[in-house]
C-alpha cells in the first residue's frame, strides 16, 4: 500500500480484534452478495402485515396518504407556474420563450426533466 494511504488509515483492515467473526470468513470472496439482501419492498412483503391486527401501527400503516391539496403544475425548466404542456415531449412550460427552449432541448435533457418529475417512460 502506498504511504499516504497507509497513513490516512482510510482502508479497513481485514481483521478487527473486537469482532468474533471476521468479514473474510463470513462473506466468502468471489460470491456476489448483491442478491442476498432483501430490499425494502421484499422485506415488507415478507413481513405479511395483513395477518397482523389493523390497529397496530407498522411500517406501512404510518405511511402518509396522498395530499389533500391538488398538485400545482410548475414549469419544468424555469419553475414558474405552468398552464401549458408540450404535446410532443409532455414537458410543462410557462410561456412562449420557454417553449422555444423546450423545443430546442436535446432528447436526453427532456428525459432527465421528466425523470425529475417521475414522469419519464422507462423502456427496458
Amino acid at each position, binding site marked *: *500500500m*502506498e504511504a*499516504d*494511504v497507509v497513513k*490516512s*488509515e*482510510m*482502508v*479497513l483492515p481485514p481483521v*478487527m*480484534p*473486537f*469482532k*468474533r*467473526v471476521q*468479514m473474510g470468513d*463470513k*462473506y466468502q470472496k468471489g460470491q456476489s*452478495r448483491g442478491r442476498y*439482501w*432483501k*430490499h*425494502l419492498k421484499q*422485506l*415488507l412483503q*415478507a*413481513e405479511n402485515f395483513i395477518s397482523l391486527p389493523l*390497529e*397496530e*401501527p*407498522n*411500517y406501512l*400503516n*404510518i*405511511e*402518509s*396518504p*396522498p*395530499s*389533500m*391539496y391538488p*398538485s*400545482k403544475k*410548475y414549469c419544468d*425548466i*424555469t*419553475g*414558474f*407556474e405552468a398552464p401549458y404542456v408540450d*404535446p*410532443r415531449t409532455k414537458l410543462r412550460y*410557462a410561456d412562449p420563450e420557454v417553449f*422555444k427552449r423546450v423545443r*430546442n432541448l436535446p432528447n436526453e*435533457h427532456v428525459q*432527465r*426533466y421528466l425523470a*425529475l*418529475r*417521475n414522469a419519464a417512460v422507462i423502456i427496458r
Partner: protein
Amino acid sequence: MGEIRIARQTDYDLFSPTTPIVIDNGGSTFRIGWAGESDPRIMFRNVAFRPRHRSTGETVTVVGEHDPALFKYFDCTRSSWRSPFDNNVVYQFEIMEYVLDYGFDRLGASSSMAGKVDHPILMTECICNPVYSRAKMAELLFETYGVPSVAFGVDAAFSYKYNQNLGICAEDGIALSIGFMTTHSIPILKGEPLPEGSCRTNVGGYHVTNYLKEVLSLKYPYHAPSITWEKAEELKREHCYVAPDYPSELQIFKKEMKEAEEKKRVWQLPWVPPPQEEPPSEEELARKAAIKEKQGQRLREMAAAKRSQKITDLENELHVLETLLSQLDEAELPEVASSILARSGYLSRQEIESAHLRVSQSLRKARGEPAVTVEENTDTATSADKYPLVSIPDEMLTPDQLKEKKRQIFLKTTSEGRLRAKQKRAEEEMMRERQNQLEEGRRLENPELYLEELREKYKELSEKIDQRKRLKTNGNGNGNGNGTGNGNNVSGATGRGERLNAAQRERMRLLTTALFDKGKGEDTFGLKDEDWQLYKLMSKDTDDDDDMVDPDEAELERVATKLQEFDPSFVGRAEAELMQSTQEPPRPRALTAEDYQVVLDVERFRCPEVLFQPGMIGEYQAGIDEIVSHSLRRLPNLDISIKDRMCQSIIVTGGGSLLPGLEQRLETGIRATRPYLSPLKIVRAVDSVMDAWRGASVYAASELFSTQTFSLEDYNEKGEDWLRRYNIVYSLYD
C-alpha cells in the same frame, strides 16, 4: 460534517463494560460515542465504498468521507458509494457491518483485548421499523460483535426528550423530524411517542439536494461535471431557503422585480481568461505589409505576362487569316481557291471573314480598346437582303422556294425577337441604373432615414414571406396528412379544409368521392381501368410556387444586400434563425467570466419546496406540513384539548430543518389544517442535527437504562413476535 481524517480515540479502555455506547444510525450520518457525553466522538457519512486497489488488485473497503486525492490509488469505476439504507430502513447488513467496524475501530475498540465489543449498545432506528431489519441488526450486534445487550429507540423521540428537558417543549407535543429520505410526524403524549398516531412522508434532505443538483445540471449542461453531490449539498446549506408563500415568491422573479436581483446568488466557477494577444509591433506590421506587396506584385506580373501571351497568340491567328484571305484573293482559278479552302479547314470565304472579324475584335478587347459593334449593323443592313423571298407573295413561288421562304420567315422573326429582347434588357438596365442613382442620392443626403426605410421594408417583406411559408407548410402538412398520416402536424388540430389551397382541396374532393362507399358495401375502386384516370385529374403536388421566382423574395434579397452594406447592426434572417436554434453561445466568440457563472435565483427556494409539495418530484404524498394534521387525525380518541396542547409544542428536528424560513412556512401550513384560532407554536430544536444523539446519550446514561435493553438470551427465547412489540419507555428519568 466531521473532519476528513478522523483520529482514533485512545480512551476506549478507560470506560467500564457497563458504559453503554450510543449510536445514532442516521440515513446521512453515523454518530457514535459514549453514553453521558454531550457530543458523539465520531461522526461520518453513513456510506461504504469497495474499490479495487490498483497496485495489488485486491478489493478494499473505505467508509465515510476521505481526502479525494487519495482515491487515485484505487480503481473507482466499478464500484460506487453504497448506503446500508433503503429509504429509512437498514437492509444491507454487509455494508452496515463495514460501517460499524469503522465506527468501533475509530472509537478505539481495536486496542481492547476483549475480542468483542463489551458494552451495551443503544442504537436509533426509524419508528415502526420492520421486525426483519430489527432482528438482523440485533443478530449482527450479538453474534459478530459479542455485544451483551442492545436497545433500540426512535431518534425523533430522543430529540424531543432532550428538548423537553431543556424546557423548550412540553410533555405533550409533536416531534416533526425531517430526515434524509423521510420525514416523520410523531405525537408525544406524557413524554412517550404514540406510534399509532405517527405519519411518514417520503421526502427529506436527499430529495432537496438531488433536485437542486439535477436542475442546475440541466440549466448549465456545460458545467455539469462541476455540480457534484457534495457541491450541491454545500449550495443547499448556504443558499437555499423556504419561501413564506411560494406563489408570490415566484411572482417576484417572474415579474423581475427589484427584489429578485437582491435574492439572486451567483456562483463563479474558476476560469482563466485566454491570454491576450499582444497587438503586433511596428516591425511586424511593416514586415507583413511588405510580404503582401511582394505577393501582389508577383500576381500582377503573372497577369501581365498572360495577357501579353494572349495578345501575341491572337495576332498570330489574325496574321494567318489575313494571309489566307490574300491568297484567296490572288487565286484566279476556282480550283486553287477550293484547294486552299480545303487545306485551311474553313468551308467558305465568308467563314474566314467572320473568323477574321472575331479575332480582331478579341484582339482589340485584349489590348483594351473599345470593341466595335459591327455585328448589329451588318445584321440590320442586310435583313432585307437576307430574306429576299419574304416580301414576294406566295403564288409566285415554286414549292422549293416556298420552303425556302418559310425558313427565311422563321429566321427573320427569331432574329427580330432577339433584337427586341436585347433592347428591352438594355432599357431595364438603364432604368435600374437610374433607380440606383436615385437611391444613392437619397442615401447620401439623409442616411438615417434611408436606413430606417430599408429596415421597415425588410421587416415587411420577411413577415410576408414567413406568413406565406407558414400557410404553405400548414397546407402541405394537412395535405400530406391525408395520405401518410403524418403525426408531426405543426399546427395541431386545424380543420382539414381550412388552409388547403385550391389544388389540394380539389384533390381531397376527388379522393373522398371516389372512396365514398356507394352503399354496395364493397370497395370496387380500381376494378375498372377508368378509375385510375382519377389521378390524372388531380394536379401534382403544388410546387409551381417554387418554380416561379418569388418576386417578394427577390426584392428581399436586394434589400438585404443593401442593408448589409450600409447597416452595421443588421443580421440576416438566416443567421438569426441559426443563432436561435443553437443553444451554445455562437463561436468563435470569446468566453467571458459570465459564461462560467452559475446563477441561483429561483432554485434557491424551488428546491426546498419539494418538502412541502412532494408532487414536484412525482411523489403523490402529503407535504411535511400536512402530515401533522394526518397524524392528529389518527388519534380520534384523544380529547381536543390534548390535541390543542400538543400543537402548542411542535418541535422541528433533524438535519432538514436547518433551512431558513422553515418554521414560518410550517406555521402557515399547519394553521391551515387546524380549527380557527386554535393555538399553535412551532419551535426548532436547539441543535437539530445533534439532539437525537444527545438525547440518546442522556437516556443511556440514566440508571434505569439497563431495564430497557435485551440480551441475546432474551432474543432467542422470546422470538420474533416479542421483538416486534418491543418498544422502550422513554421517560426513565422523571
